[in-house]
């Protein structure tokens, strides 16, 4: 074999080698793509199932709270009204009878209002702004602390799952503030910053150390819930300095 033949063989071999290498590369890419596609599908299904699980949990929690609220209303309000109606209707005086009928009418409207709370359809009919306003009014009506709501822009109609999560997260934050922070003031602000929709919840209560494990797990739960709807949460607090929470809504 002379040097010229050698060089020709090298050229033939190089051509075949490069052709083979490229073919292998492209085929490998297709195989890797298939593999990753399957992994991605599995991951998406997992995220979807986690999302559904979270939503289910949230629905359960809201229903539990609603049932507690309904129970309290039945006992403290409707029960009292019915007892009063019984007393009025038991009286022989016609004016008491009339008052008894009016009380019965009041009971009917209270029961109607309560029945609306028993399923989650109210979530669809209420906006987040309305929900926050209702919650703040409830807090104020107990005389626990003052509240303010400032809405700089309309959140608009959100999908039911996002609304459910937001309602639950806001409820949880407000409950935590009342239970643990003893604030004089709770203020909520809805605003937009560089296309990011935000809800700011601020209280001037005791505050806490977010790095502590005891407070961390609850916050982790809130964060995880916000993430399931593509949002996020940021918490700024320190003992004695109140708490500032930003909810970042998905676009």
């Amino acid at each position: 074999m002379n040097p010229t033949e050698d060089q020709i063989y090298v050229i033939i071999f190089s051509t075949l080698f490069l052709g083979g290498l490229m073919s292998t590369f492209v085929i490998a890419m297709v195989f890797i793509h298939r593999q990753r596609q399957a992994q991605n599908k599995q991951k998406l299904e997992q995220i979807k199932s986690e999302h559904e699980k979270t939503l289910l949990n949230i629905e359960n929690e809201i229903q539990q709270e609603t049932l507690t609220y309904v129970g309290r209303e039945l006992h403290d309000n409707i029960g009292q009204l019915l007892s009063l109606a019984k007393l009025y209707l038991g009286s022989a005086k016609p004016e008491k009878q009339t008052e008894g009928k009016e009380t019965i009418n009041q009971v009917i409207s209270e029961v109607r209002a309560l029945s609306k709370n028993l399923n989650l359809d109210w979530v669809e009919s209420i906006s987040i702004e309305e929900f926050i306003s209702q919650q703040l009014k409830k807090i104020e009506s107990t005389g626990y602390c003052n509240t303010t709501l400032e809405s700089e822009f309309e959140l608009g109609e959100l999908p039911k799952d996002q609304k459910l999560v937001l309602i639950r997260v806001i409820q949880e934050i407000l409950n935590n503030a009342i239970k643990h922070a003893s604030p004089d003031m709770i203020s909520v602000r809805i605003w937009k910053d560089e296309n990011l929709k935000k809800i700011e919840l601020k209280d001037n209560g005791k505050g806490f150390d977010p790095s502590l494990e005891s407070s961390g797990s609850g916050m982790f739960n809130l964060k995880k819930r916000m993430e399931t709807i593509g949002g996020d949460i940021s918490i700024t607090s320190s003992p004695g300095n109140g708490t500032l929470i930003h909810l970042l809504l998905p676009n």
Partner: protein
Amino acid sequence: MSDRFIEAFFTAYPQYSIPIDLLLLIGIFIFIKLPKEKKRNIHFLLPFVILCFSVFYQNLGSYTNYNYEFKKSVNAYFGNTEYPKFNLWLFNIAERQVGTILYLMLIKSYIRPFKRKIINWMIFIFIVTALVLQFSGIEPIYLNQPIIFAIGANMILFGCALYFTDLITHPSYLNRNPLRLTSFWQMTAIIFMFTLSYISSVALIYLYEVNPVLGSVLQSIGIYLGILTLAVLTISIASPLLPNIFDKEPF
């Protein structure tokens, strides 16, 4: 039509000139048939531009072989009086420079937005390097330009690698079947064309001296891969008319 004209345009390289002319006619016919918004879409417009440009410069090359005086005057304009029969200037400008830029732009249209900046920089660097090498006299425009070719081919292969990494990592690509994407077939054809062109550019002149049969086989590989790439581009233009075979590109 004179015999020389027929020879220059049709019979000198019939295995190349006739198929690409046919591909251009098919490409024009399909492009006319496309809806208006598809005609403006870069995924169909750019393959059409590349097809038209490639067939145009190949025919211009044939014309330079037919009109010797024209070829000679262009060579003289570039300062080449030594080899007036060469039309390498056309090959260098059209295929090795403008062609490289067009293929880089095509690759750019298929990769995720943040990687497009890399391709923009590559195009910029390629243009500056090609101009410097030509104006400094290192690689005159009328002679073989191995350095410019190597830089361009490497950039295209790197661009293809960027595409394939997106193919196996980006969720938009992972949701699709690559075999139903015209971009996948385009990148495969481009990767083969430029890899095997490497061997041609390095060994062709040498092989023609020592083994002309093998030289012509090697050249044929390049020619057929060029036709294959143009055929893939023609099919890409037709892809909106074949929705059962091809999927929509994610980017």
